[in-house]
């Protein structure tokens, strides 16, 4: 028989005003297992807590029921109280007789009866409470950052600066990501490369950061504090130790292919560094286009390499490392324009995407920073910018707003006026959205100082008309039709989640939304966490955002990682599911409903008659389980139970509450 003590709190007159405490105390004294009943004006006060501790010792209580305010208020306080008196903190049970009784019922008789019922229920549950223990889990204090754009770079640097080890994985041969492709950045117009490349170099030189370029995440296992990640190091065919980055090979390679970095405006070689400031500034061989790998003959790069760094035999390597936390910063794809035939993209060379236009602006781009028409190399005098291409379009694009286009189009209009004197920008828009520090002023500058004409109304069709382009639309404000002959059309393409975001999400056991952007744990209060503890998000992989927001989120993710690493070990939540081997049939219904991937199959050995046999049953990973209990109902034989809310406890509560 348990020795249960019941402590009834008056909460001043908050409870005592509507509940007859003496009557409740007398009733509690008759309940099964109750050996001690006491009351206090304020149980949460120091005196009240001391009373509980003394009573536990004096009356050898082994379970404690406190009838007071909501457990959401003081459960932790009182758990500590009973723990300091030598009991397991989970021996405590709380009857909520304030928020759910005295405060909501005016009738004293009804309130008193309900209080007795609630206490009886708590006593019945407490009698079945068992000692629960948090498990201490060691932490691997090394972080993995996936993605080497500005988000990944910032997160890696911030984590490394707190003194913890970081591995940064980038799929391309160089760090840099999207920001490296940009020319200037709004709203200050500072040069993208000037602020990004020093950070790239910092990453390469930081003693706490290991940089893996041309590498991808293959497999992720484990949980907060103890992830095991397999990384595929793709065969670069260039030995990074030997290569000096002299560039001899780049000039001699005979195979040419459209440059991804230059958005296909020019060609690169099959052996290439994506751009001049690449980090590491050492090439990789694109085997799909290399003449040696496709025809078996060539080896020009090997012949010209003074460092003997070319290695055609190199193979992909899979390396496995342990990590305590992961930051996902995989960025975005630009929207494919296959469904937008009306804009003549791909049909006329002078219809460009915004990112292509960005390359034309860039001093290291294909035109050396001059805005020239791809068709004839002349500077365009009039340029139509079309906004929301693939954005806010639930018919054939993304239903959401890509957020950055209004601002970069204003930037493009400003830069056009600076680079091509006497030129004119027409911006076709649906709405102009410039929320952000100094953003509205920047937009104002585009039309007040730089002469851009903003036309509310989206372009309906672009017709090639001789050397020019006829842009047809309507100005919805005046109701006038618009027909403009322009030299160039720039399409503000929308931002998509990475095409393979879902695959990565699956590997990481995190979720994506309907647009394949990674889902944060809470849209307001946990915007950088994922549902999976220990995995954080930074940058556009979570949703469209600009550079300042991306950097802020990356730093936030870094702090979250550092906060985990600042501890020596982690304590697991003790109210987790557990499997009773003899009841488990191994059908794994539980696994299907677990939102945390906390349940897996395990093989157990059992005696059957005289022999030992093996079979599969469910296993709960206590580090991943968050204690929701969805599995307990999916399990027909009740083999999986939730500690702290067991079937036995809840049935006892039901029985008691109905008495």
């Amino acid at each position: 028989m348990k020795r249960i003590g019941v402590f009834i709190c008056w909460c001043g007159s908050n409870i005592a005003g509507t509940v007859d405490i003496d009557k409740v105390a007398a009733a509690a004294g008759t309940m099964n297992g109750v050996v001690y009943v006491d009351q206090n004006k304020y149980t949460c006060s120091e005196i009240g807590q001391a009373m509980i501790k003394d009573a536990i010792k004096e009356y050898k209580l082994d379970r404690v029921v406190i009838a007071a305010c909501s457990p959401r208020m003081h459960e932790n306080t009182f758990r500590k109280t009973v723990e300091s008196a030598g009991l397991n903190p989970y021996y405590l049970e709380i009857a909520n007789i304030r928020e759910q009784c005295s405060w909501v019922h005016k009738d004293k008789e009804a309130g008193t009866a309900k209080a007795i019922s609630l206490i009886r229920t708590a006593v019945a549950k407490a009698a079945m409470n068992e000692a629960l223990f948090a498990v201490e889990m060691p932490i691997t204090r090394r972080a993995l950052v996936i993605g080497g754009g500005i988000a990944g770079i910032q997160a890696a640097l911030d984590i490394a600066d707190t003194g913890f080890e970081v591995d940064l994985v980038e799929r391309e041969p160089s760090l840099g990501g999207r920001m490296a492709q940009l020319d200037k950045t709004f709203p200050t117009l500072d040069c993208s490369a000037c602020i990004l490349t020093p950070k790239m170099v910092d990453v390469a030189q930081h003693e706490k950061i290991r940089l893996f370029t041309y590498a991808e995440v293959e497999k992720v296992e484990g949980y907060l504090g103890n992830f095991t990640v397999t990384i595929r190091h793709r065969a670069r065919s260039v030995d990074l130790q030997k290569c000096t980055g002299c560039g001899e090979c780049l000039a001699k390679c005979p195979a040419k292919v459209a440059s991804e970095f230059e958005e296909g405006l020019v060609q690169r070689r099959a052996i290439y560094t994506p751009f001049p400031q690449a980090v590491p500034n050492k090439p990789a061989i694109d085997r799909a286009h290399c003449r040696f790998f496709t025809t078996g003959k060539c080896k020009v790069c090997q012949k010209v390499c003074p460092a003997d760094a070319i290695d055609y035999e190199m193979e992909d390597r899979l390396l496995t490392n342990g990590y305590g936390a992961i930051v996902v910063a995989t960025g975005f794809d630009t929207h494919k324009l296959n469904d937008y035939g009306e804009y003549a993209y791909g049909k006329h060379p002078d219809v460009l995407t915004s990112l292509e236009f960005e390359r034309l602006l860039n001093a290291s781009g294909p035109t050396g920073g001059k805005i020239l028409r791809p068709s004839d190399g002349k500077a365009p005098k009039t340029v139509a910018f079309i906004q929301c291409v693939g954005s806010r379009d639930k018919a054939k694009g993304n239903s959401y707003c890509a957020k950055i286009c209004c601002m970069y189009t204003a930037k493009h209009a400003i830069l056009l006026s600076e680079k091509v004197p006497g030129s004119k920008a027409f911006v076709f828009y649906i709405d102009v959205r410039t929320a952000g520090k100094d953003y509205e002023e920047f937009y104002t500058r585009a039309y007040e100082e730089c002469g851009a004409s903003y036309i509310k109304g989206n372009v309906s069709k672009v017709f090639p008309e001789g050397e020019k382009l006829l842009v047809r639309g309507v100005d919805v404000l005046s109701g006038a039709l618009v027909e403009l002959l322009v030299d160039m059309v720039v399409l503000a393409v929308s931002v998509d989640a990475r095409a393979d975001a879902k695959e990565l999400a699956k590997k990481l056991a995190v979720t994506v939304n309907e647009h394949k952007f990674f889902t944060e744990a809470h849209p307001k209060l946990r915007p950088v966490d994922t549902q999976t503890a220990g995995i954080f998000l930074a940058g556009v992989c979570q949703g469209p955002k600009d550079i300042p927001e991306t950097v802020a989120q990356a730093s936030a993710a870094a702090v979250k990682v550092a906060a985990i690493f600042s501890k020596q070990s982690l304590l697991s939540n003790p109210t987790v599911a557990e499997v009773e081997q003899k009841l488990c049939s191994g059908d794994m219904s539980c696994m299907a409903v677990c939102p945390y991937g906390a349940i897996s199959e395990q093989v157990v050995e059992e005696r059957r008659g005289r022999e030992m046999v093996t079979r599969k049953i469910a296993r709960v990973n206590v580090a991943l389980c968050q204690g929701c209990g969805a599995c307990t109902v999916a399990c027909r034989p009740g083999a999986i139970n939730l500690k702290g809310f067991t079937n036995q406890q809840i049935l006892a509560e039901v029985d008691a509450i109905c008495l």
Partner: protein
Amino acid sequence: MAAVIGWRKKDFWWQSPVVFLEDPAAAHRLVWDPFTVYSPVKFLLEWQASCAAKVGIFVKGCDSRGINRLLQDKRLERERVVVYGVPCGGKADAEKIRASFPAKGIKDVTLLGEQLVLTVGDREVRVAAEAYLLDKCLTCRHPNPVVYDKLLWEEVLPRQRADESRFARVQAVASLATEERFFYWQRQFERCIRCFACRNTCPACNCRVCIFDQAEPRWLGKANDPADTLNYHIIRAFHVAGRCFECGECERICPAGVPLQELNRKLIKDINEAYGDYEAGLDATDQPPLGTYRGEDPAGFDES
């Protein structure tokens, strides 16, 4: 293979129970006649638990879905079973035959296509089989095995109008007023003696330790209380919700004649209507409807 599970003939014309044969020489004892209705599937559980050897099993269309049921529940090692599929034109109902013919005179009953051939005394009688088939076979949608290693003969055509009659009884009960419905079910359940035959024969009830057999916690009272009987039937039906593949053995085998299919099919109907058509036992790899969800699912309650 160390044994095969099939059917054999017993003393009377209406008895063709399940048999385990370990001796190849005894293979001639296997029969296939209008009464091989018993599901052999659940015997596989005991076989696999007690013996590591391979076993062969003969399955009708309904039984084959039981195989998928066990596979989906990870209760069967597929590679340890050789499945012989037997396309089935329906099984005969001995009660219906007895009602039309003098029971003592019947010597033999066989099925020939759509005809039932009875040897009564020394004469042969041929009647249309449909009138003498089990009710559950008249609503059968999958007479051909859906999983097998070897098919014994050509597939048969599914019975016409099986779909129309599938939910007829459910609709009839549902159309009663609440109180009438309660008394209807009371009349059914008061006959229940909680022998658990329905559970024991059901391939979907394949837990190692059934929740109703557990003492701590005791989910189901042992006393003969109507509320406990109701509890049993509610939880049993809930546990096979989205998993029942409509073999109808529970109802056929019930000694008290409780119309369990009316309960099982009600759940199937509700699930189909709310969460999309789903037939259990056709695919051993998908996820039953209660083990998954869609964000836009409708609810059977006030969601405001």
